C-alpha cells in the first residue's frame, strides 16, 4: 500500500529542501532578532514583535496575496529584480523560500525569546567580564544554556514549514520540482479524486507532525534553564 510515485518523491525532496533551508535562514535571523527583543521594552520592540507575530493570525492567503503583489513581475521587488536581469520571485522556489521564512518566523522567534528571557543578562555579563567577546559568548554561554530554546525553535520552524499550504499555493502555484511541496501535492491528489495517494501522504505528514510535537514537548520539559 505504501508505494510512493516519482512525483510523490519529488515533492518530498522539495519539501525537505525547503524546510531545511528555511530553518537555517530562520535561525540566523531569529537569533539576533530575539536577543534584541529580549534586551529591552521600547515601543520599537513592541512594533517589531507584533510584525513578527502577524503570520500567527493572518490567513495565509493574505500573506500570500501581498507577497505575490510585491514579488511578482509588476511588484516593487519583482520588477527591480527583473530590471537587474534576474527573474521575479513569484512561482519560483526562491519565492516560496522567502515566504516560508516570513511565515514561520514567529515559531523561531518565540522559543528563542523565551529562552533568552529565562537566561537573563547575568551569564553574558559574567562571560564578558571574564574576557569573552561576542562570538565566544554566543558559543560558550548562550548556545549551551539556551540549547532547549534553539532545538525547539529549529524543530518548530521545520515542522511549521512542512505544514505550509495557503501561502505557497498563492505565491508559488503548483510547479513540480519548483513549488509543488507535499501539502500542495496532497491537494492536487484530492482534486484529482486520487484518494489513495492523498491518504498515503497525509498519513505520512500526520505521523511526522505528531513525532515532532512529541519531541518538542519532551524538550520543553527537559531543558528548563537551570539557575545557579
Amino acid at each position, binding site marked *: 500500500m505504501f508505494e510512493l510515485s516519482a512525483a510523490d518523491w519529488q515533492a518530498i525532496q522539495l519539501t525537505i529542501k525547503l524546510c531545511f533551508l528555511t530553518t537555517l535562514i530562520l535561525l540566523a535571523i531569529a537569533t539576533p532578532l530575539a536577543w534584541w527583543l529580549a534586551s529591552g521594552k521600547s515601543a520599537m520592540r513592541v512594533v517589531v514583535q507584533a510584525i513578527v507575530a502577524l503570520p500567527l493570525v493572518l490567513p495565509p492567503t493574505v500573506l500570500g496575496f501581498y507577497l505575490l503583489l510585491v514579488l511578482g513581475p509588476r511588484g516593487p521587488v519583482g520588477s527591480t529584480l527583473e530590471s537587474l536581469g534576474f527573474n521575479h520571485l513569484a512561482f519560483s522556489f526562491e519565492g516560496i523560500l522567502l515566504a516560508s521564512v516570513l511565515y514561520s518566523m514567529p515559531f523561531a522567534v518565540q522559543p528563542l525569546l523565551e529562552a533568552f528571557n529565562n537566561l537573563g543578562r547575568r*551569564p553574558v555579563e559574567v562571560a564578558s567580564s571574564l574576557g569573552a567577546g561576542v562570538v565566544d559568548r554566543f558559543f560558550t554561554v548562550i548556545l549551551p544554556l539556551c540549547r532547549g530554546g534553539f532545538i525547539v525553535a529549529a524543530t518548530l520552524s521545520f515542522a511549521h514549514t512542512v505544514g505550509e499550504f495557503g501561502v505557497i499555493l498563492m505565491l508559488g502555484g503548483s510547479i513540480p520540482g519548483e513549488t509543488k511541496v507535499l501539502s500542495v501535492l496532497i491537494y492536487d491528489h484530492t482534486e484529482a479524486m486520487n484518494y489513495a495517494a492523498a491518504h498515503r501522504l497525509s498519513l505520512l505528514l500526520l505521523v511526522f507532525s505528531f513525532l515532532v510535537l512529541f519531541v518538542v514537548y519532551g524538550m520543553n520539559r527537559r531543558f528548563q534553564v537551570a539557575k*545557579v
Partner: protein
Amino acid sequence: MSLQIRVRLRRGDFKLEVDTQWPAQGVTALFGRSGCGKTTLMRIIAGLEHVKGAQVRFADQCWQGDTQWLPVEKRRIGLVFQEGSLLPHLSVTGNLLYGYKRTPVALRRLQLDEVSAMLGLETLLSRPVDQLSGGQKQRVALGRALLCSPQLLLLDEPLAALDTQTKREIMPFLSRLAQDAGIPIVLITHAPDEVQRLADRVVFMRDGRIDEICSLQQALAKPDSPLFADEGPSSVLEGQLGPAEENSLRLFGEQGSQLRVHAPDQTASGPIRLRVLARDVSVALDDPARISIQNHLVVTIRQLHELPGNRVLLNTAMQDGQTLLIEITPWSAQQLGLATGQSVFALIKSVALMR
C-alpha cells in the same frame, strides 16, 4: 594610578551625578544605602552599562571617553556579583578556568592551585556548581575573577546574600584577598562591618552623589559617621601581631600602645586589624592595678563630643598616634573632670580581630 569617573544620568526619579577620582590601590569601599546608585556606578566603571557622555579612566587607559568605548571583555576587570553568577553548565573548575583561558599567557599572574589554596577550593573542584552552598559559590566566583589576573577587582555586595554564619566563614578569605592579591579593589557595600574589616578608603554615596571620599581612619574620626549606624562608634587599630605567648595571648602593636589579644592559634604573625567598640572602653585617671581588664593604655584626649542619647564620645590619641574612641556618660566625664589635652588610662574590655 587612579580611577576617574564622570557621569550624569537621569532615569525617572533616579539621578546619578558623579565627577570624582580616587587612587587605584588598596581596598576602596563604595558605601551607601540601597538605591543610592552604588551598583549603577559600578556597572558604569565595569562597562556593563553604556551611559552617553560618561567618562571612565583607569590609570593611563581610557575606558570610556567622548569617542572611545572599551568593551567589558577588554577592560581586564574581575567582577563578583551578589549572587547567581556561576555558569551553570560548567563545573567548578570550568568556571574557575573560563577567564583564565581567555587571559593572554604573558598577563597571567595567578595559577589555579594558588587561587584554590587561597580560597579553600581544593575539595570543590570537580563538583557541579548546583551542589555548592551559597558561600562556596561566592568563593568560586571570587577565584574565577582572580584567575583572570584582573587589573581592578569590582565586588558588588559579595556577602549581602549570605547568612551571618556563611559571611563569617568567607570574610577571612576576603581579608586575605584584600591584603595579598595586590589588586586594587572596589567593594560595594552597605554594611559598616565590611568597611571596617576590609577598606582602606571609603567613598560615601547618597542619592546618586558622592558625599565624601576619605581614608578609613578619617571616616572613623567623625563622631556621627554613617559607619557607626549598626554598632555604635568604634575604632579600627592597625598593627603587628606578635608570636603566641602563654595563655594563648598575643602581643599587638607598638611599645606603649601594646595590647594583649586573643587570636586563634593559626593566625599568622604580621599586620592585622582590630576593632574596638567605643562602649567597650572605660576611662580611669590612675592605672588601676587590681581589675579584670588587662589592657590599659595611656591616651591623650583630643576632643569630647556630646552624642544624642546622653552619651559622651572621647576622641583620644594613643601613644603611637592611632585614634581610640571611648564612649562614657556625661556624668562620668563631669565626675572625672575630663578635658581636652588630658592624659588618661583607657581600659579596653574587648577587641575583635578584623583581619
